[in-house]
């Protein structure tokens, strides 16, 4: 039923691409988060009044009890490394030199957090539980994106 072929270019194929573009709506809670980053150099969280859980990034609703959350409030962009990895490959699979450290940072005083890069630290000096804080771009360069944070660095 089939020939022994190992090179896809040996038989006729048709190369195709799907050019897809979107604008993603941040929403009420998402805009509060991105504005806190851009305008005040901090993060934002919203609290479920019933569960007393602080969501970061903020959300309009509580995923546990489905209640509407309170207005987002500003939160300092510092927390603890809950887990980290040293990435040796870029998105296309090519070697990353130097490697990039990614961490999930649990933000202090909230139940939430975010994944971001770690900087100003060597991979060998990172450990779970390390206290870190965000390094923001200068206010004039911020656009309202998580990339307005350059990276997180060890506190002190």
């Amino acid at each position, binding site marked *: *039923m*089939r*020939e*022994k*072929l*190992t*090179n*896809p270019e*040996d*038989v006729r*194929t048709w*190369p*195709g691409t*799907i050019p897809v573009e*979107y604008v*993603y709506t*941040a929403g009420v809670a*998402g805009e509060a988060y*991105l504005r806190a980053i851009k305008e005040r150099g901090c993060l934002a969280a919203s609290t479920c009044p019933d569960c007393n859980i602080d*969501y*970061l*990034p903020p959300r309009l609703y509580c*995923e546990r009890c489905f209640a509407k959350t309170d207005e987002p409030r500003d939160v300092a962009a510092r927390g603890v490394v*809950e*887990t*980290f*990895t*040293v*990435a*040796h*490959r*870029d*998105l*296309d*699979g090519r070697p990353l030199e130097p*490697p*990039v450290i*990614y*961490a*999930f940072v649990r933000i202090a005083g909230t*139940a*939430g*957090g*975010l*994944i*971001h*890069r770690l900087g100003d630290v060597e*991979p060998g000096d990172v450990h*779970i539980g390390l206290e870190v804080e965000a390094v923001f771009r200068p206010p004039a360069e911020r656009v309202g*994106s*998580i*990339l307005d944070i350059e990276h997180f660095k060890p506190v002190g």
Partner: protein
Amino acid sequence: MPERVAIVGVGYSDVRSTTPGLSYKEMMYEAAVRAYADAGVNPRKDVDSFICVSEDFWEGTSIFDEYVPDQLGGALRPVHTVTGDGIHALACAAMLIRTGRARIVVVEGHSKHSDIRTPHHIHNFAFDPIYHRPLGAHPYHLAGLEMNRFLHVSGNTREQCALVVRKNLTNALLNPRAVYGAEVSLEDVLGAPPAFTPLGELDIARPADGGFVMVVAAESVVDDLAGEPVWITGYGWCTGASAVDSRQWGEAVYARLAAEQAYRMAGITNPFQDLDFAEIDDSFSYKELEHLEALRLCRPGEAGTLLEEGVTLPSGEFPVNVSGGSLGVGHLLEATGLHRVYEVVLQLRGQAGPIQLAEVERGLAQSWRNLPTTTGCVIILERS
């Protein structure tokens, strides 16, 4: 009392690292022909409904569900697609039969991964577009994060993850369906180039092409069919939060909850005692250990010890991934769960050839929808 449901026919299109000679439709046709011959059914007359699993971006075609009926013998018949793992579709088939709406249902899943030129970009496209994707990281950084936390909280070790790789690649050497069988030492795995620490290059399941078709039938028609039935006695599925901030880092909660549903349905109270073997997700080495614990096949933190003691080897008390798993066979995208079910069916029928286990009555298959998901499915299969 709803009817009992059985898998009565299975077929596959050869698992390979690349399949340049066949289109995905021809692969599906090949798997379907084998499954229908095994079950002794004519799809144009006997099958009441067809269920496929696919994800448009893996296929490269939007509204891909329009492209599936003809090669399955399902043109102008009831057909629908589940954008989930193959075990999702098997659960749908069983429920469709138990409603009385259908007696025979066909389930299909395939991977034509070798057609995809930018798989990591598709994976990255599954990340949150505002809060995560702008980092532009290779999607497997999330596996590195998961693995590091899992080892930290569970006490399992990097070396035990390497043992998973050695076990599954070794198992795969004997499985005719496996692409990546190899003899590797612990040193090979631990000494492989670091990828997303603590994850190394050999800890990551490599993709493969392949397709699976299964015929599912009500008990009332099983005796009229040729295929040896394997009974579906339990299933469950569950999805956690897409957000990285509210997931439970270090524990596969989705697998634990999916298993609870399946165990309750099948009347299983002590999974390790009540089941004989399992084919579970090992898309990354640590996942086999994390899933073993989530499925309550051992206590939290003990999966690595179970492995070291040989319990999960083919010769052990509770073999896990005798097939070689995704590490040894290759990862088959949405068809991965169906491949695991296929292996369980062969074992229960006594048709697993060189990898046949002795005296197995009841097995489990589990899937995880891979990064960045928190979705898992569990199915319980029995011989009688």
